[in-house]
């Protein structure tokens, strides 16, 4: 490998490692949120309203006198858990089903590919908002996962090279379609599962938080970073900390997931 190639490979490995480490820290923060936070979720009047960051309140207080650090930790916890649930649905319905569907008989596979392709061409945010509107905000994580699934399906499906020469020769030597499918799933998930999961996490986290910001995700009194930022909209021009720290927490979650997935700069998760 050339020196440039080695540097590139090193950078990729370092990025991934950073991403997974960050996600690990987020997981720790999620599990220890109640312990790390100074106040329970939604506890008002802890301090004065809209107090700037200080020793007493590291991230300041919001319009209702809530400690922004505590609220951010609770919000991160809830957002991360919901995003994880949605990501698992995206993996199951998208990546796994896509890899399996790649080995279906051609006509059926073509129909599925077209169907999922149509949905993948619509912004996942639109689909999420629509699905939540048709059901209920309670189902937001599931709907976000389902909305992220078509793109995951298309990617996994396209990775299954049904017309590949090696698949043709394998069939010519009596290797059954089920064995080829097992081969696809083994290597798809051995090589790609962790990356696919991180990618789905990034996608669902963005979709969910945006949906919450627009009023379709979590409902108060649930804590959610998107919801927090939406609530801070009226005050953040005067008190930047009310929106900045939740936004930073959201950025950390999404950034770590993107790095762990090995996504390039600007690549759609």
């Amino acid at each position, binding site marked *: 490998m050339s020196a*440039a190639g080695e540097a590139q490979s090193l950078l990729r490995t370092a990025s991934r490692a950073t991403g997974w480490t960050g996600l690990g820290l987020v997981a720790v923060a999620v599990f220890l949120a109640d312990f790390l936070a100074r106040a329970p979720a939604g506890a008002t009047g802890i301090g004065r309203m809209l107090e700037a960051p200080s020793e007493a309140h590291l991230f300041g207080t919001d319009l209702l006198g809530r400690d922004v650090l505590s609220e951010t930790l609770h919000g991160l916890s809830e957002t991360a858990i919901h995003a994880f649930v949605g990501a698992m649905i995206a993996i199951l319905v998208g990546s796994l089903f896509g890899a399996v569907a790649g080995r279906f008989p051609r006509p059926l596979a073509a129909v599925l590919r077209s169907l999922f392709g149509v949905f993948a061409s619509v912004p996942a945010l*639109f689909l999420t908002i629509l699905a939540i*509107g048709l059901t209920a905000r309670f189902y937001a994580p599931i709907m976000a996962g389902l909305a992220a699934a078509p793109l995951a399906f298309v990617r996994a499906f396209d990775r299954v090279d049904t017309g590949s020469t090696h698949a043709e020769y394998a069939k010519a030597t009596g290797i059954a379609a089920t064995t080829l499918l097992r081969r696809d799933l083994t290597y798809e998930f051995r090589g790609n599962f962790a990356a696919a999961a991180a990618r789905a996490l990034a996608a669902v986290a963005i979709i969910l938080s945006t949906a919450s910001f627009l009023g379709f995700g979590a409902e108060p009194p649930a804590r959610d970073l998107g919801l927090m930022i939406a609530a801070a909209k009226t005050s953040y021009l005067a008190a930047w900390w009310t*929106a900045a720290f939740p936004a930073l927490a*959201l950025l950390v979650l999404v*950034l770590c997931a993107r790095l762990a997935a090995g996504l390039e*700069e*600007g690549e759609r998760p």
Partner: protein
Amino acid sequence: MLEFAARQAVRLAVGLVGAVLVAALISAIAEPHAHGLSPYLTAAARRLLSFARLDFGRSAITGLPAFGEIARRAPSTLLTVAAGGCVALAVGLPLGLLFSIEAIRRAASPLMQIVTALPVFCAGLALAYGAFRLLHWPVSVNTPVNGPLAPDQAFRFAALPVLTVGLAGAAAVQLALRRAASQSSGESFRVGLRRLGLGAFEIERAYVVPQVIAGLVSSAGEIVLALLSATVVAEWVFHLPGAADLFVKSVALNDWNMTAIVLFLFAALAFVADFFGRVAGFVLANEASG
């Protein structure tokens, strides 16, 4: 070329038909007697026929014809998307060219990763804050803009959403450009033609740049998708009365007929952009100078 265009046309047709079917299914929810599978499907079929007659029904909220509502709101959205697209190209093209140089990309990668990971609504709010604090611009994040405005005021109110959409699109543009460039950089013909005696600049100009541009144009669908997603958020953040804002409000208020029409509009935009992008990219790729 014709074969390729025909294949893409079939793809477009399938996409549009799919979008119409989905729109009919969503619109049918609004039918008062559509309870149960059979009545619902009947209602959906009726809606489909109405669409075929260009009858898009009425808004459940205002009672006004849906087409009229869309016609009133869509131009603002399309203008935002178009202006955002121009910003996306203006920012994304130089960035993409810069980042195709590996050393620069490696140096800028951490910052780019952070910037592109930021959700659009956070970016919009951050831009509004910067404009408010540093430039002392009036911003519309908390109240909608009403009444006629002086040109410079109108520019300031329009600039932030356009910039928000444009920067989201720029991320997609620079990625598409970079991908097309890196695809060409791995090709054996660059080494082969160099060894045969052509100059590096000559190879880039005659054989690489057309392919890179073709690759970028082929990604028009992806770029338009990014712009549309960002527009929904930008209209909400900056209180712009566009079609995307109408979509969000229609879903919130269960105006399914309006929701269906707006969704179809956006899907059609994405499919058509994808179609023209792929065909144009194919033509450019095959018309490379000899």
